[in-house]
């Protein structure tokens, strides 16, 4: 049996560039049905229970790092010093805005502690520019969606070489 792959966009399509992750994830799933889109994930804790049984989870989230808008990068949540890397309750640095302090890294740490995390989790970041209310991506972010999709597909294809 082939290992399963899930992709999930983290964020809200109704908060402008916060919707970058969901936009990339749905584009990946449309290109490659073997990659099941389990998002959009507005609350990272919702990953638990949704990714059960997956061999690989590729999560796509909007970032705010100071890089030029649209910059696509692979994020190592264990090492990057992200605001979301504060677990489910550690001292949250300014800017950590995930619901009730349970950020993406916190949700992943919790899932690992519960032994309910996929063996491999990759987080792809796409730098956002505007996070206010509304729909649609900034031009620079929209222009980078294709690059992010290619990057995600490259991870999926490692698991699904024939896909």
């Amino acid at each position, binding site marked *: 049996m082939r290992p399963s792959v899930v992709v999930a966009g*983290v*964020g*809200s399509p*109704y*908060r402008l*560039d*916060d919707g970058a992750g969901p936009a990339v994830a749905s584009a990946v799933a449309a290109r490659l049905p073997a990659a099941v889109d389990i998002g959009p*994930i*507005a*609350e*990272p*804790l*919702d990953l*638990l*229970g949704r990714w059960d049984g997956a061999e690989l989870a590729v999560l796509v*989230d*909007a*970032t*705010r*790092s100071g*890089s030029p808008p649209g910059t696509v990068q692979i*994020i190592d949540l264990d090492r*990057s*010093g*992200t*605001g*979301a890397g*504060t*677990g*489910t*309750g*550690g*001292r*949250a*640095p*300014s*800017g*950590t*805005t*995930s*619901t*009730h*302090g*349970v*950020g*993406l890294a*916190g949700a992943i*740490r*919790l899932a690992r*502690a*519960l*032994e*309910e995390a996929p063996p491999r989790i990759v987080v792809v*970041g796409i730098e*956002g520019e505007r*996070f206010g*209310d509304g729909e649609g991506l900034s031009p620079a972010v929209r222009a980078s969606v294709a690059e992010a999709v290619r990057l995600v597909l490259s991870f999926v294809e490692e698991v699904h070489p024939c896909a």
Partner: protein
Amino acid sequence: MTSPDKPPSRTLSVEGLARVEGEGSLHVEIRHGTVESVALEIFEPPRFFEALLRGRRHTEAPDITARICGICPVAYQMSACLAIEDACGVTVDGPVAALRRLLYCGEWIQSHALHIHLLHAPDFLACEDAVALAALDANAVKRGLEIKRAGNLVMSTIGGRAIHPVNVKVGGFYKAPEPAAIAELGDPLRRARDASLAVLEWVAGFDFPDVEGDYRFVALHHPTRYAIEDGRVAGSEGLDLDAAGFAQLAVEEHVKRSTALHSRLDGEAAYLTGPLARWALNSAQLPDLVRDAAAAAGLGPTCRNPFRSIVVRAAELLFACDEALRLVETYDAPAPPALDVPPLEGTGHGATEAPRGLLLQTYELDASGIIRRARIVPPTSQNQLTIEDDLRRVVQSHLDLSDEDLTWRCEQAVRNHDPCISCAAHFLDLTVERN
């Protein structure tokens, strides 16, 4: 060595409060053994939702206000609907009202399960956070997440999705869920109810500091049921007002240190909304299942120990599961799913019980239904003064603790009330180290 008659001055400071919604900090000044000042500072940027609502159509209020909070969007939607319907002279009852209550139970289940297990329980088990708690007691955390999922399922089945439901409209719902879809909620809710009984037993066994607050409780009260989605505003000192009357009584003031407004009754008295207030005013209305389990957990008719709010929250979690199940089993798909609510010039008020306390909204409409003025009074701004009183009391009665332990205890005192300081957008605040 400090002279016993003149203890040193101490300053406790927490710049980034953990395990609360949004960004806040707290500062405590102790001079010669006396608490001199306590400040819970909220520095979320003000969100101009009230201004954003001006000029929008009356039918847009539920969708706009749902964005204020990712944890309690239903509370915002329901208070908005009640206020708009009040302004337009429409009362929603029958199957539509029952479906609203079921949706609201879903929000209570997911919010209480989250707060109990991931945010509050770690405080009582010497765990830094839920990850540490998961290492200590994985089954307890898994049980909590399973209950939370049942709440999410209720919300997504009725509301269209678990966060920011899209099916709610002024007058009711865009579409009534199929009876078969509602029936499918039965098994998860039954499991969640059983699990909630175990949760109540679990939290009752925690060690609680011996602290009591002289609270002025304020909560909705309904003559025939535990108030969630409607009711009059009641208080521990005989308060009995409709939402319009309460809107006049609850006076907000701006405090320099905070971007949240502080509410006082009649501009003077601090008060407390939320689980402790609801319990004190309404617990006699709960079904036997909940009252018996709560009594076994050591809860009397009134609980004034804020640290024991986790036990009250667990009892309410059990109730929300039980009530949701009852509503599932008696579901009657509303037809039509919504009442028509034509605009009417005037002012309307709506109050409902968000998981963390009373949420009041007021709208002033013109004859064509355009919102001319909006006022939103969330639970946290109502509770903020009382939380500061709690902090003062907790510090004063634990001066023997080291700064580190006392600071930790202060953070717990804030978390006792599950403050919800902001809504959430989920971008990563990313700092990259470059060599």
